[in-house]
């Protein structure tokens, strides 16, 4: 009951947010001089005839209000237009890229949460130990490390030497899951490490601080006094409460994650969403860029709803309502 109402409300807010993003995109891209937009939409070598045809076909000569309604209508029907160069529907391009980007994101997030949280928990339970100090230095290095620098250093330091010595499991580029789990992981492992290392640093710091705070609470002392094992106290009582700031941080970081994915795909030549959208910018492929912006925003909205639900599940004080 409460959950259903919460979901409906969040989905409605999400639709409003998406509408705002779509409107913003429309204003950014279509309120410029008609000829400029038409030239961009028609491709570089378009003749004046083609351009005037594009203006007529897309209704760029219509009043802005009518154009806006058309744009919303098309977007709502997932009709995102065609890439200039291949004439493939943008929808198809996005659908092709999605599995690649999803491979990077899912593996990267899993690795980053596992590493970030476990290092954070161990650091907190052994505050000021050698491990904690090393972890703190590592966190600072991770915070200072741009994703593409780490990626390129991994290519030079891991990928090239290994392949020179005949170990060809680790590869750049992409191999789909259809080539088998092991080759897929070989292609994905460096992107995962790259994405995870930079982000895990933040989570290590966050979970360490949060757990240290939690472990000073009265109910932790109560749990210890009941004679629970330290392991159980930390995992069942401490960690659960300590996780709430971590989960809410996840909501903030989803935007940053998308940025990270774009860079990782660029470094490791993975032809996913990020790679193609950067290419689209280089070539001025406007429909693809618009499609990417809308898809990315939808992703952020949906992910935030999921994060809020997880938040409520973890922290009984947050009532879903």
């Amino acid at each position, binding site marked *: 009951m409460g959950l259903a109402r919460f979901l409906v409300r969040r989905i409605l807010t999400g639709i409003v947010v998406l509408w705002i993003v779509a409107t913003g995109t429309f204003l950014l891209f279509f309120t410029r001089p008609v000829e400029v937009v038409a030239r961009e939409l028609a491709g570089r070598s378009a003749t004046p005839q083609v351009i005037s045809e594009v203006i007529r076909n897309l209704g760029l000569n219509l009043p802005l209000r009518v154009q806006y309604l058309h744009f919303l209508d098309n977007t709502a029907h997932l009709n995102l237009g065609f890439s200039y160069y291949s004439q493939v529907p943008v929808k198809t391009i996005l659908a092709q890229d999605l599995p690649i980007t999803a491979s990077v994101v899912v593996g990267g997030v899993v690795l980053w949460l596992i590493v970030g949280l476990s290092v954070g928990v161990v650091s907190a339970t052994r505050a000021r130990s050698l491990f904690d100090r090393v972890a703190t230095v590592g966190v600072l290095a991770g915070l200072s490390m741009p994703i593409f620098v780490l990626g390129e250093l991994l290519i030079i330091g891991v990928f090239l030497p290994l392949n020179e010595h005949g170990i060809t499991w680790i590869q750049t580029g992409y191999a789909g899951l259809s080539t088998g789990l092991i080759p897929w992981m070989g292609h994905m492992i460096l992107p995962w490490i790259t994405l995870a290392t930079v982000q895990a640093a933040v989570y290590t710091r966050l979970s360490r601080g949060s757990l240290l705070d939690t472990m000073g609470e009265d109910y932790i002392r109560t749990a210890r006094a009941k004679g629970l094992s330290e392991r159980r106290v930390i995992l069942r009582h401490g960690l659960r409460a300590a996780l709430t700031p971590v989960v809410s941080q996840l909501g903030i970081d989803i935007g940053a994650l998308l940025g990270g994915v774009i860079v990782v795909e660029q470094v490791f030549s993975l032809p996913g969403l990020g790679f193609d959208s950067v290419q689209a910018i280089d070539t001025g492929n406007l429909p693809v860029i618009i499609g990417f912006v809308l898809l990315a925003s939808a992703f952020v909205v949906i992910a935030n709803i999921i994060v809020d639900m997880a938040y409520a599940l973890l922290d009984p*004080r*947050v009532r879903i309502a």
Partner: protein
Amino acid sequence: MSVTSLEFQAHSAESAPEQAIEGRSQWQLTWRRLLHDKIAIASILVILVMVILAITAPLFASLTGHAPDQAFTNTGTTSTGAPVGPGTHGFLLGTDYIGRDLFIRILYGARVSLFVGIVTTAIATLAGVSIGLIAGYFGGWVDTVLARFIDTVLAFPYIVLALALAAIFTPSLTIVIGVISFFSWAGISRIVRGQTLSLKEKEYIEAARSLGAGPWRIMFIDILPNLLGPVLVLATLYIPIAVIFEATLSFLGIGIPEPTPSWGSILAEAQNYYTVAWWYVVFPSVALLVTTLAFNLLGDGIRDAMDPRTERIFAAGSQRRRRRRPGVAAVPAVAGGPAPEFPDPPRQPMPPTP
């Protein structure tokens, strides 16, 4: 220690009245603590060296006779057209793919990185502090609107907006600074807002109000000085974020346009040459890492110096450790992470969103 020696000490203290006890302000105390922090001092030195190198980049260019975008096709590339290594033909750190001096380009890249880092942080700090103060002080619907806006900006995928802007406008320094500033103020605002909310309930604010001070005077004269500490820490920690941000945009080709060298764009070019020219990747990476690390360490150092409660992992650690009993290790008041007033920059936990 015997009683007599204590008496002796007390006596000697009394007999030296000319040694007046000097009052020390919070800032003086912070500064003194910072000066004892070897890592922070080293970071300051590294940053100073970087700044000096960046300022004197044209000097190095004229000394070596290599302009930043001058391609030396004969001496700067091998017979196969590959970059030459460090030390060859007077190229200190080697050359790039068309035979430009990598050392000079990295120096000029430092100008871009530091300029963007400092300018955007200044803009973001000004905007963030003002908006946070207004939201926190006025409360009500003003706060609701601004707080929602802050949350939206914090959760927005910034690279997506940067991509969209790059598609419309030709990338330029102004756009880069605009985009980075736009996504940096929100984190500062959120913290300033939170602090203002608690500070405005203090008695001295009430006193100021009863003396007839207006809201702007209270915000900027009475509340702001109390916020300067956390804001300074945040600003220092935002500089490396802005530097990385700029480098990332340039790496993706939507940042500082060619031929101006930026660490990010140098590394993007280097991508195609890492099999033949390790220096092409390693030196710009090191420059970038050293800079961001120095600012991060300095920010942490200032935070530690301002807040005596925080644990100082690096600086003067041994002295403090000895005094600490092992049993209190897990008590947060002693060992906890940064105090709530000094959180990490853009990564604050969200308040519960019901």
